[in-house]
């Protein structure tokens, strides 16, 4: 089941056609399951990610009648469902970040030299970052990670979480401030005005 090479149907059209032909919904899985898996694997590791991706699509499938057809892109919708499912594993997630404070991350850093250099910087800051993530309230963490790891724009985060864009901004600011404080603890020059 591959997506036709011709002009791809919008997600919204695809979801609409799945109302009459339920199996068509699988095309949405083919489009976005890998993206969601990568995102959730960052937060919870690969095993939980597999389950959560499965459940996200099952939940989306059962709610497809209520999908807002004006939204062509279904990613925020799917991220929103996945985020709710991730929330059930909040303890696991926090434990995962806490464990990062002391253990090395899997896999070597590869790629162009600038990426390797960036990787070294990232490695040095990792314990502080992990500490900060483990300590963030869930609502702030969800916004921060949808932006940083999910690559959603503010309005998409707002749609995903069902909150106003202003709330996205304030939660993001609060989360970033805490992250910067955690990082700033060892490098005050990084402090921003």
């Amino acid at each position, binding site marked *: 089941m591959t997506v036709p090479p011709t002009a791809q149907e919008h997600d919204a059209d695809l979801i609409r056609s799945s109302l009459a032909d339920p199996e068509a919904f*699988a095309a949405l899985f083919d489009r976005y399951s890998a993206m969601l898996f990568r995102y959730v694997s960052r937060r919870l590791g690969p095993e939980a990610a597999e389950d959560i991706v499965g459940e996200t699509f099952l939940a989306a499938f059962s709610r497809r009648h209520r999908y807002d057809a004006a939204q062509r892109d279904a990613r925020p919708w799917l991220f929103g469902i996945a985020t709710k499912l991730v929330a059930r594993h909040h303890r696991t997630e926090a434990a995962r970040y806490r464990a990062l404070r002391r253990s090395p991350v899997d896999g070597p850093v590869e790629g162009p030299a600038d990426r390797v250099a960036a990787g070294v910087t990232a490695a040095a800051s990792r314990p502080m970052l992990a500490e900060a993530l483990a300590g963030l309230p869930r609502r702030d963490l969800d916004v921060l990670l949808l932006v940083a790891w999910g690559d959603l724009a503010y309005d998409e985060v707002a749609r995903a979480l069902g909150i106003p864009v202003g709330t996205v901004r304030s939660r993001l600011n609060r989360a970033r401030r805490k992250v910067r404080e955690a990082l700033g603890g060892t490098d005050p020059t990084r402090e921003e005005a």
Partner: protein
Amino acid sequence: MDDLELLRDLGRELEHEPPASLTRQRGRLLEASRPRGRGGRVRWRMLGAVAAVTAAAILLPMLAFHDRRTEPAAGTSAPAAAGPLNVLVIGSDARRDGYPTRADTLMLVHVPAGRKNVRVVSIPRDSLVTLADCANPRGKGVPVGPVPIGSAFTQGGAACTLKTVERLTRVRIDQTAVIGFGGFRRMVDALGGVEMTLPAPVADPAAGLRLPAGTQVLDGRQALAYVRARRGLGDGSDLSRIERQQMFMAALARRMRAHQRDNRLLFGRFLAAAAVSVETVPRLDVGGLRALADTFARTGADDVEFRTVPVRPAAADPSRLVWDAEAAERLFAPFRE
């Protein structure tokens, strides 16, 4: 680099590529998108699921049936099998009917030949183990590395769970019993609820559970939420959940014994609910349960001992557990009699 850049880097390091097994999730979706009705039986068998609590499902009918002062059931006077018996009870965390997920609860029950000193050992679902070499229903292999034991059920159903537990414990398992959440609720409701005394009030909004401290009767829905909840109770770990499940089972056993003496009608309803709610391999119907139960003439609820496999947090991942091999060996030795 600003904070978001550092965070993105951390994210890239933590990321995993989708495994081939992700197609299984696609299969679940397709299954859900097909018209219902066809193969309902198969779905139920796979869903298999059960609540830990369900040792109750198989063990308790046996215990409840043991009272011979009431009239003996016709035609079942000759106990079929009075030898030792090992039963694996699997409860699943399927959240909607029809979708198999992980085994939520695993218990190994040992019933010795004399039917005294029944032992129930809970196996934490987060125990990291290497799965037995069993293909899943779609013919795919299982992952090689250590995975939570609960995922054996997802990978290969009850059969794979059984093989994995048999290999880990070197205990031969005679019977598996799988029960789903719906079945668990029905069984508790058929008993008219179960009386529990809670030391402290319980509030788990995620599970829709709010209970005051003190003695009260939990209906099926409340009982299910209580034995599954991880938040707002104890230290929130799987181990404290196991403790609650075991306490609940003891309460369930008391309730059953009381009804078995005083309220045959209610008790019959419970048995009927158990027979249709629990998937047993080899298959036991009401008659089979009754025959097995008849071998328990002298077993009382107090003859049941509840234990949990001794574990410690895994070095690689503190949210997972590894067994204390020596202590587990001692714990399971009596199961091999």
